[in-house]
């Protein structure tokens, strides 16, 4: 049996979580997920500014902080902290933790190969819209193939204490140690599917140990000290989800079910580079306090195509707010919204989208929200998006004037006009897997 913990559900997750995982009980592997779809493009821009950047900068200080424990307890770390510059990340880890052996997984970054792919006839059409990539070719900021768990397992086999990958799947981080320790082969689909589903359950950190949970949320114990999840897996592909004793939160079948359904598409076809997992085969059982047993998982053959995560510069957006108090807080907010829109129209400004929400009334639930006849205050939140940066910038100047020139009781403008932000959009596409060759390098 091996214990695999997940200490980071996204870049920006709780900094103490991985530290507590190595301090508060036994684990063999610590998986850390840092990458969201858009993160790669931000990192690409950082790398263009400085060739030594382009990775998750929180990662090396974390390793420095926990390195003694990693050595004492022989815990291996697997992280996709490498972003678009895994080698620079590894060098920094080596600098702050020189006694650890660090390996990087390369080959996911295809930013420099897109023209080669296009020339060979791979259209890399947008999976959502069907448009060909050629239409946005000159605006692409980053391009990475999602790679699976086998290259990460290869890095563990090379003796690495810390494995740093770029764009691997989130589930691969947890599956890789199982492949490495149990010797699973690349066509043992049921086992690979089990490890993949284990990875899916823990990939969002505390979301499977009582965080963001709708079951009896008021009584989830000690959320301030919530324990992050641990997989206890055996060679046959059976596993339990649990957390360290004495930590806050809760692990139950209800909670694991919520996480299984999170960001799920077709449950029979959960496609990863390693296998296709069938979520309708999962059997769950509460097996003691804070422990859920998972069994019965079936899987199918891995796909011939790998998914590409491409980010491109799309345009600009800005979102601003104003607050109105009772009485008639909603009516005042709606009047302000109409005035802003009329002024934008008079200026002849064109936007792809103008969107208004009324906080305290309907911002989250829209038409489904229960009406509130006289809310004490309402926040108008209005945003625009378009290709013309100047138009978006002009919009940001049209909100605060309403405090003097619009409906009464306007306030909440203390932070000044809202910033104009670049919109970096995501372009999902497919590429034949044989075009993506990965390699493992030990960084000395």
């Amino acid at each position, binding site marked *: 049996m091996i214990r695999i913990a997940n200490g980071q559900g996204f870049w920006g997750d709780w900094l103490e979580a991985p530290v507590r995982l190595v301090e508060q009980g036994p684990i063999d592997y610590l998986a850390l997920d840092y990458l969201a779809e858009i993160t790669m493009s931000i990192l690409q821009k950082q790398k263009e500014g400085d060739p030594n950047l382009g990775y998750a900068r929180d990662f090396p200080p974390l390793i420095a902080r926990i390195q003694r424990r990693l050595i004492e307890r022989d815990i291996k770390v697997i992280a996709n902290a490498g972003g678009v510059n895994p080698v620079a990340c590894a060098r920094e880890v080596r600098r702050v933790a020189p006694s650890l052996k660090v390996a990087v997984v390369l080959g996911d970054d295809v930013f420099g190969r897109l023209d080669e792919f296009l020339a060979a006839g791979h259209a890399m059409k947008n999976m959502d819209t069907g448009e060909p990539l050629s239409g946005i070719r000159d605006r692409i900021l980053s391009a990475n193939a999602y790679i699976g768990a086998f290259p990460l397992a290869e890095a563990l086999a090379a003796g690495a204490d810390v494995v740093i990958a770029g764009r691997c799947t989130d589930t691969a981080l947890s599956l890789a140690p199982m492949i490495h320790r149990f010797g699973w082969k690349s066509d043992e689909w049921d086992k690979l599917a089990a490890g993949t589903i284990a990875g899916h359950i823990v990939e969002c950190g505390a979301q499977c140990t009582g965080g963001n949970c709708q079951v009896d949320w008021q009584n989830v114990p000690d959320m301030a000290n919530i324990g992050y999840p641990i997989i206890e897996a055996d060679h046959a592909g059976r596993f339990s989800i649990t957390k360290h004793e004495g930590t806050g939160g809760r692990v139950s079948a209800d909670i694991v079910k919520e996480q299984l359904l999170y960001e*799920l*598409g077709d449950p029979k076809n959960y496609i990863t580079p390693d296998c296709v997992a069938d979520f309708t085969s999962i*059997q769950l059982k509460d097996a003691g306090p804070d422990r859920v047993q998972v069994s019965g998982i079936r899987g199918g053959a891995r796909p011939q195509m790998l998914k590409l995560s491409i980010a491109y510069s799309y345009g600009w957006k800005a979102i601003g707010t104003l607050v109105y108090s009772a009485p008639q807080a909603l009516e005042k907010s709606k009047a302000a919204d109409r005035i802003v829109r009329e002024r934008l129209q008079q200026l002849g400004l064109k936007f792809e989208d103008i969107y208004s929400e009324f906080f305290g009334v309907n911002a989250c639930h*829209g038409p489904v929200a229960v009406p509130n006849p006289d809310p004490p205050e309402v926040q108008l939140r209005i945003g625009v998006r378009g290709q013309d940066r100047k138009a978006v910038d002009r919009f940001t100047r049209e909100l605060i004037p309403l405090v003097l020139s619009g409906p009464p009781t306007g306030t909440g403008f203390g932070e000044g006009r809202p910033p104009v932000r670049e919109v970096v959009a995501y372009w999902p596409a497919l590429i034949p897997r044989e075009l993506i060759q990965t390699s493992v390098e030990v960084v000395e």
Partner: protein
Amino acid sequence: MKIPLSRIAHARSGDKGDTSNIGIIAFDARHYPLLVREVTPGRVKQFFGEMVKGKVERYELPNLGALNFLLHETLGGGGTLSLRVDAQGKTLGAALLRMEIDAAEHEVS
């Protein structure tokens, strides 16, 4: 009689681009057939009204007593394009739990 879905089920929601996914899970496996009968894609589409611009798809997970809904064109373009505060649809599961369904007394006793 009418009961809110929240009486027999819990939920979690998230996103895939401009599509919101909502998982609806029966607290008690006995109530799963009621979910299948009452919480149809058409009813879900109707419930959210103008919020859902595209189609609603439903997948069944009887092993978990759960249904998975995909609400297409719901998140204002999704991801970084969206101007919505809830660009990831994280609150839409809680919204759907407010939907009222028909159930006979003996079905929910």
